């Protein structure tokens, strides 16, 4: 079990190292903040892992709460945007880090791009279990994904990252617009 934990920490550091390398030649304060958020997401999962009673699963609600408040603080938008979280489920440890990174990416996307000229700014994050599946339903009340993103033609790393991570967990991911941006991930 100790070897397992070492492996997990090692992998997490490997992820951070890869992200830093990815942007090392073109680093901006904004990119640095993004990487910092990834580190916070990973460390929030690790902290919750150590708190938990079991080694198999991890309770997800506090993880999403912590990530959300830290993202909101970072973007200085506390009073303006509401993030509504329903993630009162236990998630297998194996997928917890990657799931947290996906949620982090989705929230970051919304905070950066969704709420220009939008009055009611809301984000809904729902994680639920159905039989053996874990389903993440993500919505915001913003402007929706742009056409390039939906057609997989956007230049950014966001969609590639989300699809790559979903595939790593052998999950299905879909993006669409419905009074805002929506993303459903079925693991």
């Amino acid at each position, binding site marked *: 079990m100790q070897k397992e934990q070492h*492996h997990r920490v090692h992998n997490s550091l*490997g*992820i951070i190292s*890869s992200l830093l*390398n990815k942007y090392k030649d073109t680093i901006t304060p904004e990119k640095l903040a993004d990487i910092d958020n990834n580190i916070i997401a990973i460390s929030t999962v690790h902290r919750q892992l150590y708190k938990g009673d079991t080694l198999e699963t991890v309770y997800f609600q506090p993880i999403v709460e912590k990530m959300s408040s830290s993202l909101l603080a970072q973007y200085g938008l506390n009073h303006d945007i509401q993030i509504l979280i329903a993630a009162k489920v236990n998630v297998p440890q194996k997928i917890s880090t990657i799931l947290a990174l996906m949620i982090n990416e989705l929230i970051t996307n919304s905070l950066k791009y969704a709420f220009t000229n939008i009055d009611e700014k809301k984000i809904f994050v729902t994680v639920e279990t159905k039989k053996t599946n874990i389903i993440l339903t993500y919505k915001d009340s913003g402007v929706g994904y742009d056409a390039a993103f939906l057609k997989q033609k956007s230049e950014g790393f966001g969609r590639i*990252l989300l699809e790559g*991570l979903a*595939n*790593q967990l052998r999950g299905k991911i879909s993006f669409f617009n419905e009074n805002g941006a929506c993303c459903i991930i079925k693991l």
Partner: protein
Amino acid sequence: MKKILIVEDEFIIAYRIKELLEKKEIGQCEIRDTYQESVDWLSIELPDLVLLDIRLFDDEDAGIRIAHYIQEHYHIPFIFFSGYSDEATLKTARLYKPATFITKPVIEEQLLAAIKIAMPDYGICKIKTVFFKGKYFENTPFEQLMKAHFSEYDFINKEIKFDHINIIQSFNHIKRNTIVFKFQQPHTFFIMGTTIEKILAQLPSYFRQVHQSFIVNTQKISAIRKDHYITITNEDVPIGNAFKKALK
């Protein structure tokens, strides 16, 4: 452009390496993250180099088994990169003669240097000939070959460079499990106890089956005549009806 297979289960890590190697124009990269997917890919596409993580998800020695597969079938250099560098892991890794072993997290400059040393400059990876079971005859007239008896248990012990192969023809209708390799130089044949399908599965993608009994090296085609024949160094190869569509 060279081809590189990255076997790594952590997407962000794999993607970063792919991006690095493609940006530096070292090679076009494919990512696989299980033993089975890697082996499936390797049996169709032959890369110039493989980067191998050892543990894939819960499969503790997947990378070692992939190395074993590569070693049995091909001459392709591979590099292990792993978070585990304990004595036991290194000892096992050594047995498979990797080009080198890099510990994770990867220091990119180290990885680039290791790849540059490990990857062959040009030329094609070689199949290990032990894979082609059967007896081989060289510079023997065709009529004589057809009369020869050979046992399936003999195997050739000669390396064949893909680049040198022009045409591969099966003579199953005359003599069971007989395959002839035609090379650039005239009168050079190989004969083996195998089938054309088995051979095709081990060739790089520029080899295409064009007829029930023929595989050609598409890099050597000098002409295609009216959909019926492919000409490769003065030899005409018929195109089978079933293969016409795929060739277009």
